[in-house]
C-alpha cells in the first residue's frame, strides 16, 4: 500500500440538529489531535446537518483518543458521532472508465422510487457515485425528486441506460432523464 501503510484511516459520521458551528466544532477536535481530513462530504438533510469524513493520523495512533475527544464534544454540544476504523482493502479505489451520467427521476410521491431505480441500475452493474433525494411540492400533491450520478459500465451508453429505465417511467409514472456529464479535460 506504500505511504498509506504509515497512516491509520477512520470513517467518521455525524448527524446533528442543524446550527452554525457543527463543522468548526468537529474539525477543531480533528485539528487538535493532528488528524488530516482526506475526503469529506457534508450537507443539510431536513433540519439536520450530516457529515461524513475520512480522516487519517500517523501511526501509532489509538482510536480511543478520537473516541474520547468526540465523547467530550458530544457531552458539551449534543453532536452524535460514529467512528469506524477503515481497513487497507477499503482504501483502494477502483479507477472506473465508463461514461459518467446524471439521472434525474421525479414525479408524484409513492413508495419505491429510489429502490426500483437503483435496483435496475445495480442489476446492470451501474455504479452510483452520488445520490440526493428530496420531497417537494405541496401536502396534497407531494412530488419526489431523485438525482443521482453514476458511472456506466464499459460499453454501456447513455441511450442504453435511458432505454433500460423506460419501463419504469410508465410503471411508476415518473419522469426519467439521463444525461452524460463526463468531465471534459481541458
Amino acid at each position: 500500500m506504500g505511504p498509506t501503510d504509515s497512516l491509520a484511516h477512520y470513517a467518521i459520521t455525524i448527524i446533528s440538529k442543524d446550527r452554525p458551528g457543527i463543522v468548526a466544532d468537529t474539525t477543531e477536535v480533528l485539528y487538535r489531535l493532528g488528524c488530516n481530513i482526506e475526503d469529506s462530504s457534508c450537507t443539510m438533510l431536513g433540519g439536520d446537518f450530516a457529515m461524513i469524513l475520512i480522516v487519517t493520523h500517523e501511526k501509532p495512533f489509538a482510536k480511543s483518543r478520537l473516541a474520547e475527544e468526540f465523547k467530550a464534544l458530544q457531552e458539551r454540544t449534543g453532536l452524535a458521532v460514529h467512528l469506524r476504523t477503515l481497513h487497507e482493502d477499503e482504501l483502494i479505489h477502483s479507477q472506473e472508465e465508463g461514461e459518467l451520467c446524471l439521472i434525474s427521476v421525479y414525479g408524484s410521491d409513492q413508495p419505491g422510487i429510489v429502490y426500483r431505480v437503483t435496483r435496475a441500475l445495480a442489476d446492470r452493474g451501474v455504479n452510483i457515485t452520488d445520490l440526493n433525494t428530496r420531497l417537494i411540492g405541496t401536502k396534497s400533491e407531494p412530488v419526489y425528486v431523485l438525482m443521482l450520478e453514476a458511472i456506466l459500465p464499459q460499453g454501456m451508453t447513455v441511450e442504453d441506460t435511458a432505454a433500460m429505465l423506460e419501463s419504469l417511467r410508465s410503471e411508476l409514472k415518473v419522469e426519467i432523464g439521463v444525461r452524460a456529464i463526463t468531465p471534459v479535460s481541458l
Partner: protein
Amino acid sequence: MPEQKILLYPHPLLKRPARSVERIDDEIRALVTDLIDTMHAGPGSVGVAAPQIGVSLRVCVVDVSASRHGKDNNHGLLVMINPVILAGHGAAVMREGCMSVPDYTGDVQRFTDITVGFTTEDGDPRELQASGFEAVAIQHEMDHLDGMLFLDRIVSLKTGLFRRKSYK
C-alpha cells in the same frame, strides 16, 4: 523544443496574469511549437496556455477537432496570441477538468457562443466565432492568461433544486 512539462497548482505562475506579447519573434514561434507539442502529448488534451508550461505570456493553443465533443464544430488548430473575447452569448454548464489541477472536476458556466479576436502566429489580426465545446475550451485556456483556474469559477456543489428548501 518538444513537449513541455505542465505546471501543477500551486505553482505561482498559474495564478499570475500573463503579459501581452509585443512582437512575434523566434522566441514566440518556439513557444507556439512547444504549446502545440505539449497539447498533442497530453492524453485527450484540447488546449494549453503558455502559463501552464511556465511562460507568463498571453499565448494559447486550442484544437478540439479530435475530441468527441468538438469534432463536428471547430476551427481546427487555433494559435491565439493576445486573445480577447469581443462578445459572448448564452450560458451552459459543463463539468471541467484541467491538466494543472489533476484529480478534480467541477461544474463551470461558460458562454455558449463567443467572438474572439487575436493575433495569429504570422502576426495577422483574426476574429472568429466559436460555439459549443470549442468556445468552452477557448474560454478555459484564456482564463489561464488571467491567472484564473476553473476552481475560481465553480458554480455549484449540487443542483439548485436542493437548496431551495432552506430558504423557507
